[in-house]
């Protein structure tokens, strides 16, 4: 652990810290250094994720040509791991928006180091999540029917359907996240433009939208950024609430519950923060960003996880309490089956991952230990996937009519598509790491002592 202490062991608030960046130039160099220079490790990682994506594409091709029968979904479990993973990725996205928008609005300083990567994660997570509503369709080639386009057949959609709410909630969320992400990137792209030549300079130049860092530009920029932050903040609450209604609006026992929106939002932030830890921890190490992202940030993320883990644990308990207290036999049957039936392994593993494992972070020592952070975050990621698995699968498997009860298990096609979706996410993320600064240069500079007294940015 000694070597790790050398890497991460400083608090940026401490002016005497050894690796503290000293100048804007060093910031530029440190952050731009990894860009556009593919290392062997990066190429290897890229090969793996692209391979995963190709495999996923093949699996999807099988599903399109042969029909949904190649997946494991069956009566009465009509939604399988596609929907599980859809909810999982949507949830992941939320932490990014929380960190970049809400923490911005409340002037939380530790946001600076991690927000760019979190925001990228949000955009890519939503892009990954968006795959699944299309992938899981029986006739995915008709997916455009979800959109209100004018047509001579007078076809229209059903605005009563929670899936339709999803379409609007998620497309809004994706649009806002992407715009917010891009707005945040503009000054950094300009820096990158200034440090590059030739064609690359032209490309980045076009993307920088003529940014020169003038006072007037900064004035408008900060206003716009604040506006988008304020615009994005409520989406953290609304989008996952709407996603939870996919379940809560159906009369299915175990789904039909008013606790779902807050419970889903808390779970989303929980899983998202854990995912930020999981993604940034290796990047910090590989790209040597320890002056900008370090244990101080990770500890704060761990604290977020601790809070939301507590909320989730409460929600789990409350689901059982209400199922018992309401004396609704269908609710109670579902919840007791979840804990004791065929999928009990998933339930108890989920309880361990989401309620028990994060408890180690109550110890300051564990919270600041990179290995503990990395491992527990990975456990949380597994746990949050299982949570959605428990919700989606077990409620439908033991629905109202006992005669229809049956079990579900995914097939190689579904697993292949999941692997492919992870590859899709990884591909975008790796491309991002090499083409855009994954740590916000301009905002880091705000934390560095200005080189000339009284000078601005």
């Amino acid at each position, binding site marked *: 652990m000694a070597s790790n202490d050398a890497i991460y062991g400083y608090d940026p608030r401490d002016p005497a810290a050894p690796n503290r960046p000293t100048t804007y130039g060093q910031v530029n160099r440190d952050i731009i250094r990894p860009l556009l220079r593919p290392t062997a490790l990066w190429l290897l990682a890229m090969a793996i994720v692209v391979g995963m994506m190709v495999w996923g594409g093949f699996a999807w091709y099988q599903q399109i040509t042969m029909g949904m029968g190649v997946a494991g979904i069956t009566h009465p479990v009509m939604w399988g791991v596609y929907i599980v993973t859809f909810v999982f990725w949507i949830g992941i996205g939320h932490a990014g928006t929380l960190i970049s928008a809400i923490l911005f609005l409340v002037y939380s300083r530790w946001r600076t180091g991690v927000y760019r990567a979190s925001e990228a994660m949000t955009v890519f997570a939503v892009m990954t999540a968006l795959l699944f509503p299309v992938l*899981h369709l029986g006739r995915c080639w008709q997916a455009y029917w979800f959109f209100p386009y004018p047509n001579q057949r007078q076809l229209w959609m059903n605005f009563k359907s929670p899936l339709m709410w999803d379409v609007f909630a998620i497309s809004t969320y994706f649009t806002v996240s992407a715009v917010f992400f891009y707005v945040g990137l503009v000054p950094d792209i300009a820096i990158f433009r200034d440090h590059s030549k030739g064609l690359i300079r032209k490309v980045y130049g076009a993307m920088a939208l003529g940014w020169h860092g003038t006072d007037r530009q900064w004035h408008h920029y900060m206003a716009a950024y604040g506006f988008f932050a304020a615009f994005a903040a409520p989406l953290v609450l609304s989008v996952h609430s709407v996603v939870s209604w996919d379940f809560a609006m159906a009369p299915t026992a175990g789904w039909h519950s008013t606790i779902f929106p807050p419970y889903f939002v808390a779970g989303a932030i929980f899983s998202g923060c854990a995912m930020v830890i999981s993604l940034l921890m290796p990047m910090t190490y590989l790209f040597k960003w320890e002056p900008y992202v370090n244990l101080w940030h990770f500890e704060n993320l761990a604290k977020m996880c601790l809070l939301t883990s507590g909320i989730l644990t409460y929600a789990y308990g409350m689901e059982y309490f209400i199922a018992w207290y309401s004396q609704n*036999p269908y609710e109670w049957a579902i919840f*007791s089956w979840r804990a004791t039936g065929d999928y009990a392994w998933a339930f108890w593993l989920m309880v361990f991952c989401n309620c028990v494992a994060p408890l180690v972070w109550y110890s300051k020592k564990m919270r600041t230990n990179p290995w503990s952070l990395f491992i527990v975050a990975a456990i949380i990621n597994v746990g949050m996937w299982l949570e959605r698995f428990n919700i989606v699968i077990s409620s439908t498997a033991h629905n109202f*009519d006992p005669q*229809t009860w049956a079990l579900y298990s995914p097939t190689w096609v579904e697993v292949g598509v999941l692997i492919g979706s992870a590859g899709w996410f990884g591909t975008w993320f790796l491309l991002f790491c090499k083409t855009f600064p994954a740590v916000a240069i301009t905002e880091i500079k705000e934390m560095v002592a200005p080189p000339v007294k009284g000078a601005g940015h």
Partner: protein
Amino acid sequence: MGVGGGATALTACGIDDNLYFTPVETILPYVVRPEAVTPGTPTLFATTVVTGADAWPVLAVHREGRVINVMANRQTPLAAAVPAAALLELQRHYSPDRFAGPLDAGATTTWDAAIPKLASAVAKARAEGKKVAWLGGYRSGTIVGLIQSMTGGEAVFFEGLGRDAEAAAAELVFGSPALPRYDLMGAHYVLSFGADFLGGAWGGAGTQSQYAMARSANHGNFVARFALVSPHKGQTGARADDWYAAAAGSEAHVALAVAKLVAEKKGVASAFAGWLAGADVAAAAAASGLSEAAIAEIAEHFATLPSAVALPGGVAGSSAGATALAAATYVLNLVTATPAFSAGGYPGPISTLARLEALVADLKAGSVGVLLVDDGCDLVSLLPSEFGLAEAIRAAGASFSFSSHPSATQAACQVTLPISDAFEDWGDEEVVSGLWLVRQPSGAPVRDTRSLGDILLATWRALDPAGAPAGNWHERVRAAWIAAAGEMAPTTTEDAVVADAEPTGPTPAQLRWWESTLAAGFVAMPSYVSARPLTPREGQITLPAAPSGDLALHVYAQPFRRDGRYANSPWAQETPDPMTGQVWGSFVLVHPATAAKLGVGDNDLLTLATDKGSLDVGVEVHPFVREDTVALALGDGHTGAGRYADGTGVNVAALLGAQRDGSGCLAWQGARVRATAKGAKADLVSTFGSDDHLGRGWAEVVAASAWAPVGDAAAAHPGDLVGRHGLPMDVRLQKAGIEDFYELPEHPVYRFGLTIDTDACTGCGACAIACYAENNLPVVGKVKAKQGREMGWIRVNRYITDGDVHFVPLMCQQCGHAPCESVCPVLATYHTLDGLNAMIYNRCVGTRYCANACPYGARRFNYHTYLWPEPLNLQLNPDVVARTMGVMEKCTFCVQRIRRVKDAYRDRGFNNRVPDAALRKLTACADACPSDAITFGNLNDEASVPASSRKSGRNYIPIPEIRTFPAVNYLARASFHHAPAAHGAGHGEGHGDGHGEGHGDHHPTEAGGAEPPAHH
């Protein structure tokens, strides 16, 4: 009504075999449009299908050159119904494995070559003084004379699931082999010794329908009580109110003991002293394992209930005492002089096994020159090999099979002359003495087949050009009927002036009579109407030795595969076995205690061995067999019988020797087996989840004693549903006195609804198969069925509570507040003004959200695009789209039929309103149901059954707490074991829940309800 297949040659369009991807159509306009055919409009042909030992009148639905469905013929004196077997006959009609034309030694030949070959073989046999023999199933009517003229009088009419023991017993008791007639309609007590009379192979749809009448307090102020004496409670037995699990083979002892006790009670013991001489209550109790009190209880019911009738054993009772059992039931019926039992059942000819064995001996002795083998049951595969039928057929000088389907029997014959089936041929059947059903073609032959009558006539003509009768088979049948009809087909003076009439042919009036007879589908002779009592001769019944031995093998007939003739029908394979939910395979039923002793569980392979052979079969742990008995269905395990039958299941005949009863009738029962766990898993596929409905209100019970006096009359209340569980109604609703917080959709003219009487339902599966036929439901096969992807829109749920079996057919409930409608993002499912949850299949994108939201599990998803191997595609209903992959589907109350009837009444100007009478049996399931358990109607019409039955005290709606306001309501089953109050309805332990573990033992009850039941 049209008269024949002539029109069908002018088919308007041919459909490419590849239905889904690139439909190629060749459109040929009619040169001369046939008068009876309007494109897009079905033509109905009354005809008769033969389903084994039974025949049934139906209407064949003809569309554009092909028969697409069968509907109930409501004109005959028999019940209006489409039994499952009639639908399976329809699918057999289009079997992809049906022969394309005649075969000689396996090679294709032509009719022009095959018929002279048959004629010369017969001529040679006659010249050599050898016999011309006939072997086949039951045949009656005009064809029998033709067969006998070919064989010189002798013919074997034998069915594997036949009634030869009953015929032998009739010979013994009454002196004539004609079977007695049963009329269950007025019976207050039905005592069955194993006959599967509620949709099984025994008695056909007639007994099922009669029993439904006897059962319903609406038809008289009584509820028939059904007692079963048998070691196994199967699909028919599931309806029994009392199950006396007598040891296999002891039924005759019990029957005779009951007869004795009843005779004593009735004071007629002396009159039947001879017949009752062998009766011994104590010995019967010892042999059967029943207590003497139980036997006394049966006798008590039999003697005291107003009209009691005993039914013989069928396959289940065909033990070493088969004839004794049938005779004992006859005596039992005579003792009470029940009006439900009279002369004039099926008159035969019925050949016993002894006749078949004599034929086998002749064949082996080489004294048979030509053997003619009929279409129908595959006797070589069905009967144990010890009978030596296959070798005997091969020993014949020449053998001709008339089978149009491949089978082991057909393969043993040298030449195959495939004959036309019930939808392609003329004919007549005497189903009960004096009641004749007539048959007419309802479409052109699907393959190059010929009518059996025409083949025999052509052969006759080739043998004896001068002596053979003139005319074709159709003219022979017509002439025979016109002759028999006599004054029913009068000659009028008008005939004399019709120049076209041939001098020797029928007159126009006679032809008109014949056409109207064909349109009605039956002829009732005066002898049919009068019930004649039966009088016994003197004699006595010889009981066989009491059965002994460890594990008895109980052989039974599965309601769909039956004697194996439907094994190659995908519907017969994929419709779940009513009792176990098993599809596509054989399974052995083992009592839980025996299974524990053997160390096997569900789906474990069990090796069953006798000294005749052994086989491995998967175990279904089942509470409804005796502990000392295992039960295995016959009719499976074929080779060379077609793509669906081959390799599916095991053939129980491998375990059996040549078993006969005392009078030379076939005995299926009597084998003892050694069972050992194989230690491997079988490949069984059950579509059932949990057996227990966990007190969720899917199956309900009322006390029969409360229902009987009042029926379903709205004013009277036959007592509360027993043991109702569920959530109490929201207090706010109660206070406001409203149905729901939200307005129900408006249904200005119609709100279509179904009523399902679970007391009448026997689980026979006719509705489920009728739905497959009407709505183009694909068959998915074993692999996909194992994944739970069968497509049936009607699921006949089977629940077990307190040892009672409940059948609850479940289809889309067409909810008023439908959870599926609001969740569909593209409005592929929506609420119509008629109250239907309509489906727009080509709008569906396949989110499957509707299926997740549906509390009834009524929606089915097309996981793949399923194809219909040619010519099964010809059966597809052109009014219903065949769905492709990725689309959700479900019952829509046969919306295409609703559309048709609405259009018809609009065109006739009936004030835009379809009357109730035209709706009652509109849907395919309601039309088919032989028990009259399903009735369709308009809930806005107070007189309709669905509306009025909702006021019945038996009315219930499953899981009403979900507040979906379904259009389907159920009527509770009547029970003789429940008191009329709403108490004492503990829900029994679950049996063999495939998913294990405890479900909520937390069922709140309404005030005054039962204690919360405990579940494992």
